């Protein structure tokens, strides 16, 4: 009876290993890994152009992931992209004058939202709006500038004026 | 000849006709296998003896004719009925056909495990009893690849009788056995028949061995029954068939030459002949 039982045990072990591999790949190497399990609060930012920013793209401060992009919609009035960011609640003292910038990891890498903390004593809360934003850098624009003769630093298109009055929580 | 349809026949073959690859293997074969006896079936190689056993067990279906085993017409049986019938028949294959994945014990236990939910202790006792009967209880844990031809055949025999069948079919059980192993198998066939009353059909070429154990002999050739009787009657050689078969003549009703075209022509002598 013994050899038979060890067969069954080995088979069970093999099946377990196979499913463990599937579970690992599915939860640790795919976008599922980006769903933060903890509670989050929502912050809105408007951009001229989000480039190829996608839902669930990371939101980082100083390179550390603090949340993810929850949704990207077109704001009908301003004709700008309205990006909702879901920030982990444990990062609850981000100054409300922080600067949001769409950046690219590497030249061809993915786009993410980088927050540069400001100096305001007030912090971002659920429903806050980030006023200072900078759109995605467009590769085409960049190349165009180089070809035309390369003028000055990239035009910082701060959209602060657009949402200036409606700051609050 | 099976003219008198005696009620004592366990197997009744009537007007059996079978074509295989365009050749008539059986051409109106009729014969009876009496209950409780050892009946030998003899005939030239390729005459259809194995095919007949396959018909009896429903592994092959004839084109025409009836084939009754214990009253049931085998070719008309459905799957369930056929499998139920097979559980009452033991079959010893020409090459033993042990399952190479399992050891001797598990081979003999195989039919029990498949068909009967027995407590392990009871199963073990049955298997060891059958192995003891064929003298191989000590070999229970050997694998089939570790057995000699004679031992493998005895294990196959133990497996064939594990359900105490009413009928055992032996397909050339003596082939490739040394004289000692041959006598052991012969003794087993006799014992099983005499002590348990199991009806036996024995396909074999060794007339000396058949003579010691068979109650009756059917000789088939060209798809028909050509002679039938006790071994002694056949040994007297009263027909061309029996003379050739048991008298050891090379030429007779079964031609020495396989059918061929003209010999001279094949050697290229056509021109010379013309």
């Amino acid at each position, binding site marked *: 009876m013994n050899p038979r039982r060890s067969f069954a045990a080995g088979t069970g072990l093999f099946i377990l290993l196979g499913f463990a591999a599937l579970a690992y790949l599915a939860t640790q190497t795919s976008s599922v890994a980006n769903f933060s399990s903890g509670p989050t609060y929502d912050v809105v930012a408007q951009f001229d152009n989000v480039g190829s920013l*996608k839902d669930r793209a990371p939101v980082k401060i100083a390179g550390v992931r603090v949340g993810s992009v929850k949704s990207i919609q077109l704001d009908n009035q301003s004709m700008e992209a309205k990006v909702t960011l879901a920030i982990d609640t444990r990062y609850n003292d981000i100054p409300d004058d922080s600067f949001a910038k769409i950046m690219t*990891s590497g030249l*061809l890498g993915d786009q993410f939202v980088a927050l540069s903390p400001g100096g305001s004593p007030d912090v971002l809360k659920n429903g806050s709006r980030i006023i200072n934003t900078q759109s995605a850098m467009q590769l085409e624009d960049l190349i165009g500038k180089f070809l035309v003769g390369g003028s000055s630093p990239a035009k910082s298109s701060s959209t602060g004026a657009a949402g200036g009055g409606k700051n609050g929580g | 000849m099976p003219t008198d349809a005696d009620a004592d026949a366990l197997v009744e073959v009537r007007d059996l006709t079978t074509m295989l690859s365009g050749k008539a293997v059986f051409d109106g074969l009729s014969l009876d296998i009496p209950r409780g006896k050892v009946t030998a079936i003899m005939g030239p190689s390729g005459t259809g003896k194995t095919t007949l056993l396959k018909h009896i067990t429903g*592994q092959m279906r004839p084109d025409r004719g009836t084939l009754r085993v214990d009253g049931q017409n085998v070719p008309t049986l459905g799957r369930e009925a056929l499998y139920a019938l097979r559980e009452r028949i033991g079959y010893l294959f020409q090459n033993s056909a042990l399952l190479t994945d399992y050891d001797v014990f598990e081979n003999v236990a195989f*039919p029990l495990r498949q068909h009967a939910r027995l407590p392990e202790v009871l199963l073990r006792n049955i298997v060891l009893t059958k192995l003891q009967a064929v003298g191989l209880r000590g070999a229970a844990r050997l694998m089939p690849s570790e057995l000699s031809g004679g031992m493998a055949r005895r294990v196959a025999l133990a497996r064939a009788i594990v359900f105490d069948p009413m009928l055992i079919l032996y397909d050339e059980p003596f082939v490739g056995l040394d004289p000692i192993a041959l006598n052991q198998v012969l003794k087993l066939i006799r014992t099983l028949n005499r002590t348990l009353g199991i009806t036996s059909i024995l396909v074999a070429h060794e007339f000396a061995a058949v003579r010691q154990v068979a109650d009756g002999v059917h000789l088939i050739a060209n798809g028909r029954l050509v002679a039938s009787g006790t071994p002694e009657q056949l040994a007297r050689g009263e027909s061309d068939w029996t003379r050739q078969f048991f008298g050891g003549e090379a030429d007779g009703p079964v031609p020495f030459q396989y059918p061929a075209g003209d010999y001279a022509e094949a050697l290229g002598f056509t021109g010379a002949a013309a």
Partner: protein
Amino acid sequence: MSADMKTKAPRGGMLVDGLAQIGACGLFLLALLGAIPRSLRHLREISRQVWFVGAMSLVIIMISGLFVGMVLALQLYYTLSIFGGTAALGTVVALSLYRELGPVITALLFAGRAGTAMTAEIGLMRATDQLAAMEMMAVDPIAFVATPRFLAGVIAMPLLANVFSMLGLLGAHLVGVTWLGVDNGTFWSNMTSNVDVWKDIVNGTWKALAFGVVVSLIAVFQGYTAPPTSEGVAYATTRTVVFASIVILALDFVMTAFLM
């Protein structure tokens, strides 16, 4: 469906031969599926076969996965660095493995390692009358021999493909991060933001399952219908590898086009 299943080659050229084979294979698949309820009584046999075709293939699958991942990282790093895109290394490796290389290479290795073994084993069981002996013991060889092996192959293939991909990722990480110096965080975060569970991992697993079905079907069918001679079995084993490989690659194209 039983021992008297005839495999007479019909006259009329390769096309008819081929069609007849495909038809016979399809009918055989129906017989296999029909026998599933009965073969569930032989759970022990199914588990034994999962061990033989699955667990026994683990070593070759793991070693191959590791090396494929390593060479993938090496090649892609070189290509990506031309465009300054080495940050995407993790993503590209993972997508190649999950969507394509994992299922396909695993299936090809599986056909060579487990498929041939199934064919040869069943062919020899036929040649040595073991299948006929089962029939005589009132055990249906389709339900006891063919279907458990088929099911075991279908179960084992997707699991093996995922193990392959996992080891491939390990190999790629080894070469890309440890050796070539891609940033560890970038390697993973780029991957996690681009790999989709359903589109990439689950669809890849479906692919592997489909390959498991065709490879096991071909292997069992070839074994079951092999002429009962040593030449016949040898030839059937070869056919298993050839047919399975062609069908895997063709099916891969079809599934990629319609599924992914």
